[in-house]
């Protein structure tokens, strides 16, 4: 009972877009796909949706191969956003729902309900070209869920949304989760992942470099982070001299250090107290996903990494 991606490989010309990736996504969970541009996230989603066929490997949902599943199983929010510019919002949402076998009356009711939720009920009869980008994105989200899919696959759903709309979308995620849907989305925004996801996978050049529950992933290094601030000593020079402790960042508010596996982060606190320091801030934490991502993947490459030759994006 899960979405199983089993040893899926896909090659475009000279580029290995996916290299035998395997993932297990549990029903009802929110799953985050992390990776630089060109890591293979979109290709993986398109293969799950059966828009692309893998060179090898299988996809199953609750034991059934994806090629045998009705398209209504999936809801898809593509990375490249687009609507029919000349059609009204209501018209095209009903059109998309009809293609998935939803009755027009029911589709219209659902549409109006969701427009209400997204606080744009007055846009029902506007043409798509008259809407702002953020609002178009909300319309596309509605298009992805109107037919009540079991699994929602969303490619960079938060890109280009202002904070207010991002919050509305997060609420919608919560709503879908409460309805028992499985949500899979890709993003660059690590905070969003930490806030929303139960499990993640980090993809790099078509491979899963790390995967599992967010907690497991953050603990996977065995290292711990400490953040310390001491009155009158912004540098805390002695911190780096402690055994197994390495300063990673000297910020304005605190100094961040990493405690190697097998060492007790509490020793930092004790060392500070024994030096008679007046401690203003002390925090122990697992490494953030961002740190793990940078560690595993290197830089988060925001620039375009061309996957397939001659402009074929994946």
């Amino acid at each position, binding site marked *: 009972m899960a979405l199983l991606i089993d040893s899926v490989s896909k090659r*475009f*010309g000279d580029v290995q877009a996916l290299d035998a990736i395997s993932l297990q996504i549990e029903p009802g969970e929110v799953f985050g796909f992390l990776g630089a541009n060109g890591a293979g996230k979109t290709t993986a989603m*398109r293969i799950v*949706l*059966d*828009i*692309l*066929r893998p*060179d090898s490997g299988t996809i199953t949902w609750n034991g059934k191969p994806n*090629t045998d599943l009705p*398209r209504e199983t*999936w*809801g*898809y929010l*593509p*990375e*490249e*956003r*687009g*609507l*029919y*510019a*000349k*059609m009204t919002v209501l018209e095209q949402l009903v*059109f*998309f729902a*009809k*293609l*998935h076998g939803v009755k027009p009356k029911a589709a219209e009711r659902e549409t109006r309900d969701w427009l209400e939720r997204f606080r744009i009920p007055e846009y029902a009869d506007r043409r798509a070209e008259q809407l702002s980008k953020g609002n178009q994105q909300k319309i*596309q989200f509605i*298009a*992805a869920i109107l037919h009540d899919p079991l699994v929602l696959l969303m490619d960079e759903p938060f890109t280009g949304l202002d904070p207010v709309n991002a919050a509305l979308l997060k609420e919608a995620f919560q709503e879908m989760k409460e309805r028992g849907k499985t949500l899979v989305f890709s993003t660059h925004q690590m905070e969003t992942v930490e806030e929303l996801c139960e499990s993640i996978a980090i993809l790099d050049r078509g491979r899963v470099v790390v995967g599992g529950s967010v907690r497991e992933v953050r603990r996977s290094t065995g290292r711990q982070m400490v953040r310390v601030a001491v009155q009158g000593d912004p540098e805390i020079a002695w911190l780096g001299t402690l055994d197994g402790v390495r300063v990673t960042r000297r910020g304005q508010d605190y100094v961040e250090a990493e405690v190697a596996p097998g060492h007790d982060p509490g020793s930092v606190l004790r060392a500070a107290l024994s030096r008679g320091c007046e401690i203003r801030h002390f925090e122990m934490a697992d490494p953030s996903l961002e740190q793990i991502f940078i560690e595993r993947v290197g830089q988060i490459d925001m620039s375009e990494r061309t996957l397939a030759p*001659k*402009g*074929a*994006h994946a």
Partner: protein
Amino acid sequence: MKGWRTLFPNAWYVALREYRSRTRTRSFVLGTVLLALIAFAATQLPVLVDFSMSTSQTRLAIVSQVSDMPDSSGLLDHQLNPEGRKSYLIAWQPDGGLPTAEADLRARRYDILVVIEPDGPQDLKFTIRTDSPQDGRAVQTVETGLYTVAIQYRLAKAGSSIAAIEKAPAVSVVPVNGSASSTNNLTREVSADLLSTGLIVLIFMAIVTYGVWVAMSVAEEKGSRVMELMLNATTPLQMLTGKMLGNGAAGLAQYGIILAAVVGGLLAQAPIHKAVVGSDAGTQFGGLSPTVLAAFVVLFVLGFTLYSLLYAALGSLVSRQEDVQSATSPLMVLIMLGYFMSVFGLQAIDETWVKVASFVPFFSPYLMLARVSAGHVEPWEFGLAVLLLFAAIVVALFVAARIYSAGVLLYGQRVSLAQVLRAARVSR
């Protein structure tokens, strides 16, 4: 194949959307209205010509000062007002009416005054008095009419008449080898050629104009990226079929309206002529038999289907509407080739190459139609061509769906066909 089972209703929904969004555009509405008006107006041109001739009526007074003048009124009327027109109002004045007629001419109650006088014992001479230009049409026509009057007079003097002169002589045609050929006479052949050329042009125009619509609509969808939403909702086969049906129907609707305007215009020609000009004029539908019409409809629909599938496939290679023209240019060559083959084929309808080519699906819409309208086709030949055309459509549907499903995901300036074919091998 999974695609066939699930082709409908989604293909139908797509078709409906395409049809609506196409027919709602201002360019479609304006274009249809304008073309229909032009088509209707074109059919009324003969009426217009007759009308302009009938409104400018020339008033003609004739004074004869010849004592033995035969009655020429009927003859002159027939000469000046052919086909029942009323271009000339002819008033024969009584003997001694010259002063009155001259006064009327000066008062512009007449445009032309003709005085007939004897020219020796055997002939007539005419004086035309008018302010109309000497080399104008009215004067020239009157001169020609008077020439006939003179001939009639000379014949009467010689003891004969026009009727006697014009009586048809006995002529008999004797075949050399004893059996006369009774097939197509020249005029029938020429009108059949004209008709089939007209029908071929109709097919050609429809494919070129409305096929591009299909390609445009694919490129537009790809360009606006709505394609990706569509891909999860439908299969490429459903999209392709829907686009073809929707745009095809919109195109045929426009075509139908224009053709209706033409047919309506032709039918209305006679009543309008009667109302405006005041006389009858025959409308001509040359040689359009039900057989030819049926063949035209079948070949039109199948040919259009085949070509619009290919247009859709090629349209999927580009993501901007501006690139559609260049992407579809190979297809244009193929269409032109078929068109020219049929134009030349009409002159050599019984040649072997025409017969062979009329079975090739890309050319049969033109060439088989040409052969049918020339009346040189066995029923089985037509059936075979239609069957082959149908088979080609099925093959094209799958090939196009392949290219389409690969093409729609490839974005970039311009995708080469080789790239798409490579992608098509691995896509679903």
